[in-house]
Protein backbone atom coordinates (compact mmCIF):
# COMPACT_ATOMS: atom_id res chain seq x y z
CA UNK A 1 0.00 0.00 0.00
CA UNK A 2 1.31 3.38 -0.93
CA UNK A 3 0.47 6.78 0.37
CA UNK A 4 0.71 8.23 3.83
CA UNK A 5 -0.76 6.44 6.78
CA UNK A 6 -0.71 6.75 10.52
CA UNK A 7 0.66 3.23 10.82
CA UNK A 8 3.65 4.11 8.67
CA UNK A 9 4.19 7.25 10.68
CA UNK A 10 4.01 5.40 13.98
CA UNK A 11 6.36 2.71 12.71
CA UNK A 12 8.79 5.39 11.57
CA UNK A 13 8.74 7.05 14.97
CA UNK A 14 9.56 3.67 16.52
CA UNK A 15 12.52 3.44 14.16
CA UNK A 16 13.67 6.94 14.94
CA UNK A 17 13.91 6.64 18.71
CA UNK A 18 17.44 5.91 19.83
CA UNK A 19 19.53 6.10 22.98
CA UNK A 20 19.98 9.90 22.89
CA UNK A 21 16.22 10.42 22.50
CA UNK A 22 15.58 8.09 25.43
CA UNK A 23 18.20 9.88 27.52
CA UNK A 24 16.72 13.25 26.61
CA UNK A 25 13.13 12.40 27.48
CA UNK A 26 14.28 10.65 30.66
CA UNK A 27 16.02 13.81 31.74
CA UNK A 28 13.40 16.46 31.02
CA UNK A 29 12.26 18.08 34.26
CA UNK A 30 9.63 20.34 32.68
CA UNK A 31 11.51 23.46 33.72
CA UNK A 32 10.26 25.42 30.72
CA UNK A 33 13.58 27.06 29.93
CA UNK A 34 13.49 25.89 26.32
CA UNK A 35 10.51 28.20 25.79
CA UNK A 36 12.72 31.18 26.45
CA UNK A 37 15.20 29.97 23.85
CA UNK A 38 12.56 29.74 21.14
CA UNK A 39 11.75 32.85 19.16
CA UNK A 40 8.27 31.59 18.40
CA UNK A 41 7.56 31.63 22.11
CA UNK A 42 9.42 34.81 23.01
CA UNK A 43 7.69 36.79 20.27
CA UNK A 44 4.18 35.46 20.84
CA UNK A 45 4.15 34.50 24.52
CA UNK A 46 2.05 31.50 23.59
CA UNK A 47 3.09 28.54 25.76
CA UNK A 48 2.20 26.01 23.06
CA UNK A 49 5.40 27.04 21.29
CA UNK A 50 7.52 25.62 24.11
CA UNK A 51 9.97 23.35 22.29
CA UNK A 52 9.56 20.32 24.53
CA UNK A 53 5.80 20.57 24.14
CA UNK A 54 6.22 20.33 20.38
CA UNK A 55 7.83 16.93 20.97
CA UNK A 56 4.91 15.44 22.86
CA UNK A 57 3.98 12.90 20.14
CA UNK A 58 7.54 11.53 20.04
CA UNK A 59 7.69 11.43 23.82
CA UNK A 60 4.49 9.43 23.90
CA UNK A 61 5.89 6.84 21.50
CA UNK A 62 9.13 6.60 23.47
CA UNK A 63 7.28 6.20 26.74
CA UNK A 64 4.72 3.71 25.57
CA UNK A 65 6.98 1.65 23.37
CA UNK A 66 10.37 1.82 25.01
CA UNK A 67 9.85 2.15 28.75
CA UNK A 68 8.63 -0.60 30.99
CA UNK A 69 6.35 1.71 32.97
CA UNK A 70 4.96 3.43 29.93
CA UNK A 71 4.05 0.08 28.43
CA UNK A 72 2.39 -0.90 31.67
CA UNK A 73 0.47 2.38 31.79
CA UNK A 74 -0.71 1.87 28.22
CA UNK A 75 -1.69 -1.74 28.90
CA UNK A 76 -3.67 -0.67 31.96
CA UNK A 77 -5.32 2.11 30.04
CA UNK A 78 -3.82 4.83 32.24
CA UNK A 79 -2.24 6.60 29.30
CA UNK A 80 -3.77 7.02 25.88
CA UNK A 81 -1.97 5.78 22.81
CA UNK A 82 -0.78 8.21 20.18
CA UNK A 83 -3.45 8.88 17.58
CA UNK A 84 -3.59 10.33 14.12
CA UNK A 85 -5.47 13.29 15.62
CA UNK A 86 -2.52 13.97 17.91
CA UNK A 87 -0.20 14.17 14.92
CA UNK A 88 -2.66 16.34 13.09
CA UNK A 89 -2.93 18.66 16.11
CA UNK A 90 0.82 18.89 16.33
CA UNK A 91 1.49 19.54 12.64
CA UNK A 92 1.65 23.31 12.90
CA UNK A 93 3.79 23.12 16.03
CA UNK A 94 6.31 20.82 14.42
CA UNK A 95 6.50 22.55 11.03
CA UNK A 96 5.20 26.11 11.28
CA UNK A 97 6.72 27.12 14.57
CA UNK A 98 10.04 25.33 14.51
CA UNK A 99 12.94 26.26 12.26
CA UNK A 100 15.13 23.45 13.62
CA UNK A 101 17.42 26.26 14.70
CA UNK A 102 18.52 24.30 17.75
CA UNK A 103 18.79 27.24 20.09
CA UNK A 104 16.73 25.33 22.66
CA UNK A 105 19.28 22.53 22.41
CA UNK A 106 21.90 25.00 23.61
CA UNK A 107 19.89 26.16 26.58
CA UNK A 108 18.29 23.04 28.03
CA UNK A 109 19.90 22.60 31.44
CA UNK A 110 19.70 18.82 31.32
CA UNK A 111 21.25 18.82 27.86
CA UNK A 112 18.36 17.76 25.68
CA UNK A 113 19.02 18.20 21.97
CA UNK A 114 15.47 19.17 21.11
CA UNK A 115 16.18 20.02 17.49
CA UNK A 116 17.63 16.54 17.02
CA UNK A 117 14.31 15.17 18.19
CA UNK A 118 12.09 17.52 16.14
CA UNK A 119 14.01 16.37 13.08
CA UNK A 120 13.09 12.79 14.03
CA UNK A 121 9.50 13.64 14.83
CA UNK A 122 9.09 15.15 11.36
CA UNK A 123 9.97 11.75 9.90
CA UNK A 124 6.83 10.34 11.48
CA UNK A 125 4.72 13.37 10.71
CA UNK A 126 5.58 13.48 7.01
CA UNK A 127 4.91 9.83 6.28
CA UNK A 128 1.60 9.93 8.11
CA UNK A 129 0.44 12.75 5.86
CA UNK A 130 0.92 15.63 8.28
CA UNK A 131 3.45 17.77 6.45
CA UNK A 132 2.53 21.25 5.22
CA UNK A 133 1.48 21.47 1.56
CA UNK A 134 4.21 24.00 0.78
CA UNK A 135 6.93 21.57 1.82
CA UNK A 136 5.26 18.65 0.08
CA UNK A 137 5.21 20.62 -3.16
CA UNK A 138 8.84 21.62 -2.79
CA UNK A 139 9.86 18.03 -2.05
CA UNK A 140 8.01 16.73 -5.08
CA UNK A 141 9.68 19.33 -7.31
CA UNK A 142 13.05 18.55 -5.82
CA UNK A 143 12.67 14.90 -6.74
CA UNK A 144 11.00 15.29 -10.12
CA UNK A 145 12.60 18.49 -11.42
CA UNK A 146 15.82 18.48 -9.42
CA UNK A 147 15.11 21.70 -7.60
CA UNK A 148 12.46 22.55 -5.03
CA UNK A 149 11.90 25.81 -6.89
CA UNK A 150 11.77 24.22 -10.28
CA UNK A 151 15.12 25.55 -11.44
CA UNK A 152 16.42 23.43 -14.31
CA UNK A 153 19.92 23.38 -15.67
CA UNK A 154 19.15 25.66 -18.66
CA UNK A 155 18.17 28.36 -16.18
CA UNK A 156 21.46 27.94 -14.40
CA UNK A 157 23.21 28.01 -17.74
CA UNK A 158 21.60 31.36 -18.43
CA UNK A 159 22.79 32.65 -15.08
CA UNK A 160 26.24 31.26 -15.75
CA UNK A 161 26.32 33.05 -19.08
CA UNK A 162 25.24 36.20 -17.33
CA UNK A 163 27.97 35.80 -14.75
CA UNK A 164 30.51 35.14 -17.47
CA UNK A 165 29.44 38.31 -19.23
CA UNK A 166 29.68 40.24 -16.01
CA UNK A 167 33.02 38.91 -14.88
CA UNK A 168 34.66 38.13 -18.12
CA UNK A 169 35.54 34.71 -16.80
CA UNK A 170 34.75 31.29 -18.10
CA UNK A 171 32.80 29.23 -15.63
CA UNK A 172 33.77 25.58 -15.91
CA UNK A 173 30.92 23.12 -16.20
CA UNK A 174 31.29 19.36 -15.88
CA UNK A 175 35.05 19.55 -15.70
CA UNK A 176 36.37 16.13 -14.73
CA UNK A 177 38.96 15.70 -11.98
CA UNK A 178 38.38 19.23 -10.74
CA UNK A 179 39.52 19.89 -7.20
CA UNK A 180 36.23 21.50 -6.26
CA UNK A 181 32.66 21.03 -7.36
CA UNK A 182 30.41 23.95 -6.52
CA UNK A 183 26.84 23.39 -5.48
CA UNK A 184 24.25 26.15 -5.54
CA UNK A 185 20.89 26.65 -4.01
CA UNK A 186 17.87 27.48 -6.09
CA UNK A 187 17.42 30.55 -3.95
CA UNK A 188 20.77 31.83 -5.13
CA UNK A 189 20.06 31.03 -8.73
CA UNK A 190 16.69 32.72 -8.53
CA UNK A 191 17.12 35.66 -6.19
CA UNK A 192 20.82 36.27 -5.79
CA UNK A 193 22.48 35.13 -9.01
CA UNK A 194 25.26 37.65 -8.42
CA UNK A 195 26.58 35.03 -6.00
CA UNK A 196 27.67 32.89 -8.93
CA UNK A 197 29.77 35.64 -10.41
CA UNK A 198 31.17 36.53 -7.02
CA UNK A 199 32.37 33.00 -6.40
CA UNK A 200 33.81 32.79 -9.89
CA UNK A 201 35.88 35.93 -9.29
CA UNK A 202 37.25 34.65 -6.03
CA UNK A 203 38.08 31.25 -7.45
CA UNK A 204 39.78 32.91 -10.39
CA UNK A 205 41.97 34.94 -8.10
CA UNK A 206 42.77 31.94 -5.96
CA UNK A 207 43.39 29.93 -9.11
CA UNK A 208 41.14 27.20 -7.93
CA UNK A 209 40.50 24.21 -10.14
CA UNK A 210 36.74 24.03 -9.91
CA UNK A 211 33.57 23.11 -11.72
CA UNK A 212 29.81 23.07 -11.66
CA UNK A 213 28.02 19.84 -12.44
CA UNK A 214 25.15 19.91 -14.91
CA UNK A 215 23.92 16.71 -13.32
CA UNK A 216 23.74 17.96 -9.76
CA UNK A 217 24.04 21.61 -8.98
CA UNK A 218 21.21 21.84 -6.49
CA UNK A 219 22.49 21.79 -2.94
CA UNK A 220 19.22 22.12 -1.12
CA UNK A 221 17.45 19.11 0.22
CA UNK A 222 13.75 19.32 0.91
CA UNK A 223 13.88 15.77 2.21
CA UNK A 224 15.57 16.79 5.42
CA UNK A 225 13.28 19.75 5.88
CA UNK A 226 10.08 17.82 5.49
CA UNK A 227 11.61 14.87 7.30
CA UNK A 228 11.70 11.98 4.84
CA UNK A 229 15.12 10.41 4.97
CA UNK A 230 14.47 8.14 2.01
CA UNK A 231 13.86 11.14 -0.20
CA UNK A 232 16.68 13.12 1.39
CA UNK A 233 19.00 10.19 0.63
CA UNK A 234 17.91 10.15 -2.98
CA UNK A 235 18.69 13.85 -3.34
CA UNK A 236 22.08 13.45 -1.67
CA UNK A 237 22.83 10.46 -3.85
CA UNK A 238 22.47 12.61 -6.99
CA UNK A 239 25.22 14.92 -5.76
CA UNK A 240 27.40 12.03 -4.67
CA UNK A 241 27.01 10.33 -8.03
CA UNK A 242 27.82 13.52 -9.91
CA UNK A 243 30.83 14.27 -7.74
CA UNK A 244 32.16 10.76 -7.98
CA UNK A 245 31.54 10.57 -11.72
CA UNK A 246 33.51 13.76 -12.24
CA UNK A 247 36.11 12.55 -9.80
CA UNK A 248 36.24 15.77 -7.85
CA UNK A 249 38.14 15.96 -4.58
CA UNK A 250 35.86 18.40 -2.78
CA UNK A 251 32.27 19.47 -2.96
CA UNK A 252 31.51 23.06 -1.99
CA UNK A 253 28.32 23.71 -0.12
CA UNK A 254 26.98 27.16 -1.00
CA UNK A 255 25.66 29.90 1.25
CA UNK A 256 22.59 27.96 2.25
CA UNK A 257 22.05 26.68 5.74
CA UNK A 258 20.15 23.46 5.44
CA UNK A 259 21.99 22.49 2.26
CA UNK A 260 25.17 22.35 4.30
CA UNK A 261 23.46 20.26 6.97
CA UNK A 262 22.16 17.93 4.28
CA UNK A 263 25.31 17.39 2.30
CA UNK A 264 27.91 17.72 5.01
CA UNK A 265 26.40 16.10 8.09
CA UNK A 266 23.36 14.09 7.18
CA UNK A 267 24.43 12.98 3.71
CA UNK A 268 26.78 10.09 4.48
CA UNK A 269 24.36 8.81 7.10
CA UNK A 270 21.47 9.05 4.68
CA UNK A 271 23.19 7.09 1.91
CA UNK A 272 24.78 4.75 4.40
CA UNK A 273 28.43 5.25 3.49
CA UNK A 274 31.18 7.83 3.74
CA UNK A 275 31.94 9.91 0.65
CA UNK A 276 34.95 9.61 -1.60
CA UNK A 277 35.32 13.36 -1.43
CA UNK A 278 35.28 16.06 1.20
CA UNK A 279 32.50 18.52 1.74
CA UNK A 280 33.48 22.07 2.51
CA UNK A 281 31.30 25.08 3.11
CA UNK A 282 32.02 28.10 0.90
CA UNK A 283 32.91 30.14 3.99
CA UNK A 284 35.29 27.45 5.20
CA UNK A 285 36.92 27.44 1.79
CA UNK A 286 37.17 31.22 1.61
CA UNK A 287 38.72 31.40 5.03
CA UNK A 288 41.16 28.68 4.09
CA UNK A 289 42.10 30.54 0.91
CA UNK A 290 42.51 33.74 2.87
CA UNK A 291 44.75 32.03 5.39
CA UNK A 292 46.83 30.59 2.59
CA UNK A 293 47.19 34.07 1.14
CA UNK A 294 45.32 33.14 -2.03
CA UNK A 295 42.64 35.70 -1.37
CA UNK A 296 44.04 39.18 -1.74
CA UNK A 297 41.96 41.94 -0.28
CA UNK A 298 42.60 45.55 -1.19
CA UNK A 299 40.69 47.61 1.31
CA UNK A 300 38.34 47.35 4.24
CA UNK A 301 34.68 48.08 4.44
CA UNK A 302 34.32 50.97 6.85
CA UNK A 303 30.63 50.45 7.46
CA UNK A 304 29.48 49.09 10.80
CA UNK A 305 28.82 45.48 9.86
CA UNK A 306 27.31 42.71 11.88
CA UNK A 307 26.93 39.04 11.07
CA UNK A 308 23.87 36.86 11.30
CA UNK A 309 24.85 33.20 11.76
CA UNK A 310 22.58 30.94 9.74
CA UNK A 311 21.66 28.24 12.26
CA UNK A 312 22.49 25.24 10.14
CA UNK A 313 25.87 26.68 9.19
CA UNK A 314 26.84 27.96 12.60
CA UNK A 315 25.27 26.38 15.65
CA UNK A 316 24.19 23.19 13.90
CA UNK A 317 26.95 23.08 11.29
CA UNK A 318 30.10 24.18 13.05
CA UNK A 319 31.14 27.03 10.75
CA UNK A 320 31.35 29.73 13.38
CA UNK A 321 34.89 31.10 13.44
CA UNK A 322 35.40 31.25 9.68
CA UNK A 323 32.86 33.97 8.89
CA UNK A 324 34.27 36.05 11.75
CA UNK A 325 37.82 35.70 10.54
CA UNK A 326 36.70 36.66 7.05
CA UNK A 327 34.69 39.63 8.28
CA UNK A 328 37.55 40.91 10.34
CA UNK A 329 39.66 40.71 7.21
CA UNK A 330 37.29 42.82 5.11
CA UNK A 331 35.54 44.99 7.65
CA UNK A 332 37.08 47.63 9.87
CA UNK A 333 33.95 47.89 11.94
CA UNK A 334 32.67 44.41 12.57
CA UNK A 335 30.41 44.23 15.61
CA UNK A 336 28.72 41.23 17.19
CA UNK A 337 25.07 41.28 18.09
CA UNK A 338 24.11 40.26 21.62
CA UNK A 339 23.45 36.48 21.71
CA UNK A 340 25.74 35.75 18.85
CA UNK A 341 27.45 32.77 17.21
CA UNK A 342 26.29 29.58 18.93
CA UNK A 343 23.58 31.47 20.75
CA UNK A 344 22.41 33.51 17.77
CA UNK A 345 18.68 33.87 17.25
CA UNK A 346 17.26 32.30 14.14
CA UNK A 347 15.91 34.59 11.41
CA UNK A 348 12.63 32.72 11.76
CA UNK A 349 12.40 31.21 8.30
CA UNK A 350 14.62 28.12 8.43
CA UNK A 351 13.71 24.47 8.66
CA UNK A 352 11.15 24.73 5.91
CA UNK A 353 9.14 27.49 7.57
CA UNK A 354 9.68 29.85 4.66
CA UNK A 355 8.37 27.24 2.25
CA UNK A 356 5.20 26.96 4.28
CA UNK A 357 2.83 29.78 3.35
CA UNK A 358 0.57 28.94 6.25
CA UNK A 359 3.33 30.12 8.59
CA UNK A 360 3.91 33.52 6.94
CA UNK A 361 2.33 35.65 9.63
CA UNK A 362 4.02 33.76 12.44
CA UNK A 363 7.35 33.91 10.63
CA UNK A 364 7.19 37.69 10.36
CA UNK A 365 6.18 37.95 14.01
CA UNK A 366 9.09 35.79 15.04
CA UNK A 367 11.41 38.13 13.17
CA UNK A 368 10.92 40.70 15.91
CA UNK A 369 13.58 38.83 17.86
CA UNK A 370 16.13 39.46 15.14
CA UNK A 371 14.96 43.03 14.92
CA UNK A 372 15.58 43.54 18.63
CA UNK A 373 19.04 42.05 18.25
CA UNK A 374 19.80 44.42 15.39
CA UNK A 375 18.40 47.38 17.27
CA UNK A 376 20.91 46.66 19.99
CA UNK A 377 23.90 47.17 17.66
CA UNK A 378 22.41 49.38 14.91
CA UNK A 379 24.63 48.23 12.07
CA UNK A 380 24.98 49.96 8.71
CA UNK A 381 24.63 46.64 6.99
CA UNK A 382 23.83 43.07 7.93
CA UNK A 383 25.97 40.28 6.56
CA UNK A 384 24.80 36.70 6.38
CA UNK A 385 25.53 33.55 4.48
CA UNK A 386 22.26 31.91 3.59
CA UNK A 387 19.93 32.99 0.80
CA UNK A 388 16.92 31.94 2.81
CA UNK A 389 18.01 33.93 5.87
CA UNK A 390 18.74 36.83 3.56
CA UNK A 391 15.25 36.93 2.08
CA UNK A 392 13.70 36.64 5.53
CA UNK A 393 15.98 39.36 6.88
CA UNK A 394 15.13 41.69 4.01
CA UNK A 395 11.46 40.96 4.27
CA UNK A 396 11.42 41.33 8.02
CA UNK A 397 13.37 44.57 8.01
CA UNK A 398 11.05 45.93 5.38
CA UNK A 399 8.03 44.84 7.42
CA UNK A 400 9.35 46.64 10.49
CA UNK A 401 10.52 49.66 8.48
CA UNK A 402 14.19 49.33 9.17
CA UNK A 403 16.72 50.43 6.58
CA UNK A 404 19.54 47.99 6.88
CA UNK A 405 20.85 46.44 3.69
CA UNK A 406 21.40 42.71 3.86
CA UNK A 407 24.39 41.32 2.01
CA UNK A 408 26.00 37.98 1.49
CA UNK A 409 29.39 37.45 3.06
CA UNK A 410 30.82 35.98 -0.11
CA UNK A 411 29.66 38.98 -2.12
CA UNK A 412 31.02 41.36 0.52
CA UNK A 413 34.42 39.75 0.13
CA UNK A 414 34.29 40.07 -3.64
CA UNK A 415 33.73 43.81 -3.26
CA UNK A 416 37.12 44.02 -1.61
CA UNK A 417 38.99 41.61 -3.79
CA UNK A 418 42.27 43.02 -5.02
CA UNK A 419 43.73 42.56 -8.46
CA UNK A 420 40.54 41.72 -10.23
CA UNK A 421 41.34 44.20 -12.93
CA UNK A 422 43.95 42.01 -14.47
CA UNK A 423 41.56 39.14 -14.83
CA UNK A 424 38.50 41.12 -15.76
CA UNK A 425 37.48 42.61 -18.98
CA UNK A 426 38.01 39.75 -21.36
CA UNK A 427 34.57 38.68 -22.45
CA UNK A 428 34.48 35.05 -23.23
Amino acid at each position, binding site marked *: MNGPSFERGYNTLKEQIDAPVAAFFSSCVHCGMCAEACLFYTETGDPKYTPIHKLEPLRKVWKQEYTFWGKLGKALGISKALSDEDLSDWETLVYDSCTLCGRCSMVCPVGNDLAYMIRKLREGMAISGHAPP*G*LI*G*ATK*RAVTIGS*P*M*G*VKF*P*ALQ*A*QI*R*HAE*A*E*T*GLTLPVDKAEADYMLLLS*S*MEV*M*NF*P*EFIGAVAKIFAQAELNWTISSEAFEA*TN*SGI*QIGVSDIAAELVQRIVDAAENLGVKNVISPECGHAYMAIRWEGPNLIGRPYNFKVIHILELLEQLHKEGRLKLKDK*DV*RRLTYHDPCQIGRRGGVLEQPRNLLNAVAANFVEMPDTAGMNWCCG*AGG*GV*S*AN*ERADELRIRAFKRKKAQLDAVQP*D*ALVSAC*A*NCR*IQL*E*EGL*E*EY*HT*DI*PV*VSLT*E*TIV*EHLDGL*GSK*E*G*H*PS
Partner: protein
Amino acid sequence: MSQISNDLEFRRRLDRLDRTQQRTLAASFIDHVLSLSNDERVARAVKVAADVNASNDELNGALHSVTAAAMDSHARCDADCKWTDHAGYFVARATMAALSPEGQASGNPAWQAAMSSRMARTCISIDSTDDGGEEEQAEQYRILNNYLNS
Protein backbone atom coordinates in the same frame (compact mmCIF):
# COMPACT_ATOMS: atom_id res chain seq x y z
CA MET B 1 35.82 59.79 -26.14
CA SER B 2 36.23 56.15 -26.99
CA GLN B 3 33.23 53.94 -27.17
CA ILE B 4 32.65 51.50 -24.32
CA SER B 5 32.92 47.94 -25.43
CA ASN B 6 33.42 45.89 -22.29
CA ASP B 7 32.25 45.74 -18.69
CA LEU B 8 35.59 46.75 -17.22
CA GLU B 9 35.51 49.99 -19.13
CA PHE B 10 31.79 50.30 -18.44
CA ARG B 11 32.30 50.08 -14.74
CA ARG B 12 35.29 52.41 -14.70
CA ARG B 13 33.29 55.05 -16.42
CA LEU B 14 30.39 54.58 -14.05
CA ASP B 15 32.70 54.85 -11.07
CA ARG B 16 33.94 58.23 -12.23
CA LEU B 17 30.44 59.72 -12.11
CA ASP B 18 29.01 61.42 -9.07
CA ARG B 19 26.19 59.98 -7.02
CA THR B 20 23.34 61.81 -8.73
CA GLN B 21 24.69 60.98 -12.15
CA GLN B 22 24.98 57.35 -11.17
CA ARG B 23 21.39 57.37 -9.95
CA THR B 24 19.90 58.97 -13.00
CA LEU B 25 21.93 56.75 -15.27
CA ALA B 26 20.75 53.74 -13.33
CA ALA B 27 17.21 54.96 -13.90
CA SER B 28 17.90 54.99 -17.63
CA PHE B 29 19.17 51.41 -17.52
CA ILE B 30 16.09 50.32 -15.60
CA ASP B 31 13.79 52.21 -17.91
CA HIS B 32 14.80 49.88 -20.67
CA VAL B 33 13.56 46.83 -18.76
CA LEU B 34 10.73 48.54 -16.87
CA SER B 35 8.14 46.88 -19.05
CA LEU B 36 9.10 43.57 -17.42
CA SER B 37 7.69 44.78 -14.12
CA ASN B 38 4.00 45.25 -13.60
CA ASP B 39 4.35 46.88 -10.21
CA GLU B 40 3.30 50.51 -10.16
CA ARG B 41 5.58 51.24 -7.23
CA VAL B 42 8.62 50.36 -9.29
CA ALA B 43 7.70 52.64 -12.13
CA ARG B 44 7.09 55.52 -9.76
CA ALA B 45 10.38 54.90 -7.99
CA VAL B 46 12.29 54.85 -11.27
CA LYS B 47 10.80 58.24 -12.09
CA VAL B 48 12.05 59.62 -8.80
CA ALA B 49 15.49 58.13 -9.45
CA ALA B 50 15.60 59.74 -12.85
CA ASP B 51 14.83 63.15 -11.40
CA VAL B 52 18.08 65.04 -10.94
CA ASN B 53 16.41 67.41 -8.49
CA ALA B 54 14.74 64.75 -6.34
CA SER B 55 14.91 65.59 -2.65
CA ASN B 56 16.26 63.18 -0.05
CA ASP B 57 12.75 62.63 1.28
CA GLU B 58 11.48 61.74 -2.13
CA LEU B 59 14.36 59.36 -2.68
CA ASN B 60 13.81 57.68 0.69
CA GLY B 61 10.11 57.31 0.08
CA ALA B 62 10.77 55.79 -3.32
CA LEU B 63 13.33 53.40 -1.86
CA HIS B 64 10.83 52.18 0.73
CA SER B 65 8.09 51.52 -1.72
CA VAL B 66 10.41 49.77 -4.15
CA THR B 67 11.87 47.64 -1.36
CA ALA B 68 8.34 46.57 -0.52
CA ALA B 69 7.83 45.76 -4.18
CA ALA B 70 11.01 43.66 -4.24
CA MET B 71 9.91 41.77 -1.15
CA ASP B 72 6.57 41.06 -2.72
CA SER B 73 8.08 39.71 -5.89
CA HIS B 74 11.02 37.60 -4.72
CA ALA B 75 10.93 33.88 -5.14
CA ARG B 76 10.18 32.34 -1.78
CA CYS B 77 12.41 29.52 -0.68
CA ASP B 78 11.18 26.18 -1.97
CA ALA B 79 8.27 27.77 -3.83
CA ASP B 80 7.58 26.76 -7.41
CA CYS B 81 8.83 29.61 -9.53
CA LYS B 82 8.28 30.80 -13.05
CA TRP B 83 11.16 32.71 -14.55
CA THR B 84 8.96 34.87 -16.70
CA ASP B 85 7.14 36.08 -13.57
CA HIS B 86 10.43 36.62 -11.85
CA ALA B 87 11.81 39.42 -14.01
CA GLY B 88 9.85 42.02 -12.06
CA TYR B 89 11.83 41.08 -8.96
CA PHE B 90 15.09 42.00 -10.62
CA VAL B 91 13.67 45.25 -11.95
CA ALA B 92 12.72 46.12 -8.38
CA ARG B 93 16.19 45.05 -7.20
CA ALA B 94 17.77 47.30 -9.81
CA THR B 95 15.65 50.20 -8.63
CA MET B 96 16.58 49.49 -5.01
CA ALA B 97 20.23 49.65 -5.99
CA ALA B 98 19.69 52.92 -7.87
CA LEU B 99 18.06 54.53 -4.85
CA SER B 100 20.31 53.16 -2.12
CA PRO B 101 21.70 56.07 -0.10
CA GLU B 102 25.39 56.79 -0.05
CA GLY B 103 27.34 54.87 2.55
CA GLN B 104 24.89 52.02 2.61
CA ALA B 105 25.37 50.45 -0.75
CA SER B 106 28.41 48.27 -1.02
CA GLY B 107 29.07 49.09 -4.66
CA ASN B 108 28.30 51.49 -7.41
CA PRO B 109 24.49 51.90 -7.71
CA ALA B 110 24.56 52.35 -11.45
CA TRP B 111 26.65 49.22 -11.89
CA GLN B 112 24.37 47.22 -9.67
CA ALA B 113 21.27 48.54 -11.38
CA ALA B 114 22.79 47.61 -14.70
CA MET B 115 23.53 44.08 -13.51
CA SER B 116 20.05 43.55 -12.11
CA SER B 117 18.47 44.94 -15.24
CA ARG B 118 20.40 42.41 -17.32
CA MET B 119 19.23 39.71 -14.90
CA ALA B 120 15.66 40.78 -15.49
CA ARG B 121 16.17 40.39 -19.20
CA THR B 122 17.79 37.02 -18.66
CA CYS B 123 14.71 35.85 -16.73
CA ILE B 124 12.46 36.43 -19.70
CA SER B 125 14.70 34.47 -21.96
CA ILE B 126 15.60 31.65 -19.58
CA ASP B 127 12.91 29.28 -20.74
CA SER B 128 13.62 30.06 -24.38
CA THR B 129 16.90 29.55 -26.16
CA ASP B 130 17.96 33.06 -27.04
CA ASP B 131 19.88 35.10 -24.53
CA GLY B 132 18.64 38.59 -23.94
CA GLY B 133 21.39 39.41 -21.46
CA GLU B 134 23.90 40.34 -24.11
CA GLU B 135 21.49 42.60 -25.91
CA GLU B 136 20.80 44.36 -22.68
CA GLN B 137 24.51 44.76 -22.11
CA ALA B 138 24.94 46.40 -25.48
CA GLU B 139 21.97 48.63 -24.80
CA GLN B 140 23.52 49.75 -21.52
CA TYR B 141 26.83 50.56 -23.20
CA ARG B 142 24.88 52.63 -25.70
CA ILE B 143 23.02 54.49 -22.94
CA LEU B 144 26.25 55.30 -21.16
CA ASN B 145 27.99 56.36 -24.35
CA ASN B 146 25.13 58.66 -25.20
CA TYR B 147 25.14 60.05 -21.70
CA LEU B 148 28.86 60.70 -21.71
CA ASN B 149 28.79 62.17 -25.18
CA SER B 150 25.83 64.42 -24.52
